[in-house]
């Protein structure tokens, strides 16, 4: 019985180590310091919100983490995504809402293939992000082609 258990353990450890090595390798491959410069907290030019950009898998996502006016004046409650065309989303709090989605690093300081959501009108636009320097992003939302769009400048925020 004892011998049998020891034999089982050896059989078990080998695939376990393989899984471990694969996990470490995957994690290593997904580390990309150049692309990861996008991560952090950023403030749009209007200063009304702060957006934290995080990496999930190989893509980058941004969520509201701070609102200049977090309370809806008419209800006295925290602001929600009231302009979302999907009725099921209208009561979702804006704080924590992912408004940047699916960005992939393309090289040359540019992240693309993502979308940006404007809670003021409930619209989602195609979007590209260009890092003009370590602390500045050009965020361009557009319709269909890049020419039909608008660029906003976001600044990096840090704990002082």
């Amino acid at each position, binding site marked *: 019985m004892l011998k049998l258990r020891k034999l089982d353990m050896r059989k078990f450890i080998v695939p376990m180590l393989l899984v471990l090595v694969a996990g470490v390798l995957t994690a290593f491959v997904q580390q990309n310091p150049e692309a990861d410069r996008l991560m952090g907290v950023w403030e749009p030019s*209007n200063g009304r919100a702060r957006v934290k950009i995080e990496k999930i898998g190989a893509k980058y996502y941004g969520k509201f983490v701070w609102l200049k006016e977090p309370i809806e004046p008419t209800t006295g409650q925290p602001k929600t995504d009231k302009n*979302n065309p999907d009725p099921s989303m209208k009561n979702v709090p804006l704080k924590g809402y992912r408004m940047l989605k699916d960005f992939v690093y393309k090289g040359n300081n540019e992240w693309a293939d993502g979308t940006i959501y404007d809670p003021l009108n409930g*619209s989602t636009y195609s979007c590209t992000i260009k890092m003009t320097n370590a602390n500045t992003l050009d965020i361009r939302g557009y319709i269909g082609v890049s020419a039909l769009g608008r660029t906003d400048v976001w600044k990096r925020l840090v704990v002082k």
Partner: protein
Amino acid sequence: MHIRDFIAPNKTAGLIVALLCAATTSLQAQTETPQTPADTLAPPAAEEDYSQYDNIGFAGEGVKRYCSPKIEGLSPAKLISIGYDYQMGYMMKADTFRRAGNFAPLMPDSARVLTSNGLRFGCNIPVISRTDLVWQMGANYWEQRYKFEDPSALKNPMLTSLSENGLRTMGINTTLFKPLNDVKFLLFQGSADLSGDYQFGKFMPLKYTKYSAALIYGKRTSEKKQWGVGVARTYRVGELNYIPIIFYNSTDVANKWGTEILFPARAHVRRTINSRNMLFAGYELEGQSYRLWRSNDQTGFNLRNEDAEIRRGEIRLRAVYEFSLKDFIWMSIQAGYRINYRYDVDRLSDGKEVYRAFGLASDAPYVMVNQLSNPLYFNISLNLVSP
């Protein structure tokens, strides 16, 4: 010992495998593209202390804020617009046409216009769209076709030309929004329009182009209010004028009511049903100066030699419903009452326009002082709206 040596390691191994499986599953799930709406929801607020983002500062130096050209609740700007304008029937009384020189005047005439209608196209494409500067270039084409009750009975050359050729405006325009800081801004709009009774096959010389412009200094005092004052060179009431203008856009706290005003050109009260459905009530001044360029071969009289222009200006009292058909495709439906302000013919003086300044600068008479009754009108357009 027995239990610790053989059972406990098995438990530890199981835990490691479980963690690895969980980590692998988690990694796999995160790598997949999230789906709306669940993927828009970050972890619940309880899992992250958002207060840590209250007291943080800019990483770089020299951050300057600029105000946005828009305010909250404002109707979306139109990038591309294709529409159709339709006026119902009305009477047009054409005055005696007082010809230049010693030629005998042409007799007055009165005719019923069954409908006047036409295509309207406009586009405004951003050339530069940055936080510190927005520059747009645009083009527009408007036409007004006149369907008279009995075209063959028309005697007056202006009416004949309207019946045969209609009126057209084709032009380019530019808009510059320059924020000075997070509150103050400058807004410049300029346009060059070629307006007349020309047709595409027989184009009018570009020297008859009319230039309009407006410059506004304004303030965006809150997320829901912006105002400004300025001056405009305009043909909105038909003839050239230099006038002061007032710009005022606002939205109430509940985001239900607002105003969109560029006085005196237009003023509307806005009722926001939701961010994709808006109602407006108000007015717009519409007008242009149209060169009478086409000759009237049937009568043998050549309008072109008269150096004359129609000064057309009208007030459109209206209700407008604008809504999103799908995403960024909006439809605009308007109905209202077209009030004629001026439809007079003026003769250029040595090739130059007579600047009257509402009678203060000159009281030179018009060649024709025409009268139009006022019909109902409708307008429908499809628009691609801006982010």
